[in-house]
């Protein structure tokens, strides 16, 4: 790895910019994601910032099962992010469709539409587990170069 990409990799690991997208969730995971920002859990001290637009984000944090209505929008958001980019599926619904698997308007988990870098199960996921999962994902950046678009990254499963 060149010095510049090592630097970028380190900076990204220390201070990821996150975009949060809900594909059809009940909001329980979304609220726990936001709770992770509040003083009790406080991810801002780790340098984690939530951004509103895909163009500034390194990590796409997704909650909710993949509904048919939202599929195209999810793919578009993923496409708008610059490489290298990572996707975290937060909650059992984002991982596999969860309790809604089998419902007629659900296509399953978000990996049915975009590649996922890390799966964090839970219903909902506790804020500690969300933080733990994101940190675990970012710590893998030091060991290997960022995955190319065509590759499906390895699953990094975190405990829920």
């Amino acid at each position, binding site marked *: 790895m060149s010095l510049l990409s090592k630097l970028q990799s380190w900076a990204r690991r220390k201070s990821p910019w996150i975009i949060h997208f809900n594909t059809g969730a009940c909001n329980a995971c979304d609220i726990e994601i936001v709770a992770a920002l509040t003083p009790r859990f406080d991810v801002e001290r780790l340098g984690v910032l939530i951004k509103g637009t895909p163009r500034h984000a390194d990590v796409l944090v997704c909650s909710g099962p993949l509904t048919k209505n939202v599929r195209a929008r999810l793919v578009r958001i993923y496409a708008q992010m610059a490489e290298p980019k990572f996707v975290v599926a937060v909650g059992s619904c984002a991982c596999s469709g969860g309790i809604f698997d089998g419902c007629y*308007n659900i296509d399953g988990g978000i990996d049915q539409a975009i590649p996922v870098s890390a799966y964090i199960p839970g219903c909902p996921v506790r804020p500690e587990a969300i933080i733990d999962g994101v940190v675990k994902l970012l710590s893998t950046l030091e060991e290997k170069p960022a995955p190319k678009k065509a590759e499906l990254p390895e699953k990094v499963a975190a405990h829920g």
Partner: protein
Amino acid sequence: MVNTAEMKQSLEGKFDFLAGKVAVQRERRVFVEVPADRFREVLEFSMKELGIDWISTLTGLDEKETLAVVYHVSGAHGIVLNIKIRVPRDNPVIHSVTDLFPACANYERELDDLLGFVVEGLPPGNRYPLDDNWPKDQKPLRKDWKPAKAAS
């Protein structure tokens, strides 16, 4: 304010086709089935004389030979009056009540999208709740509908 027993008496007294047909399941729960062509009259009477001013929702039902709608209405008295009408499965036409209850628009659109009712007089608006790409002839809440039939 009218009470549950009085509501039953009043409906049966006013409409001869309802004699003996108004069911009081418990306090504050009244169920009645009304011929589709008399529904509007019964609803307007309830609003005028029985303190009905609130619509909670509409439930669409696939009852095999017919389709049915239950209108769940109430008022300050807290009584829920559940009025059911039936329409033929091959011609499920109902009339919008959005002139009386504007909040009904999406409840009626849902009857169209999920069960195939034809709602006359529905104000224009986006379909609800299915996606624009969902085929209009696929009605998922019908009893004979299975996911494999839908184009994704």
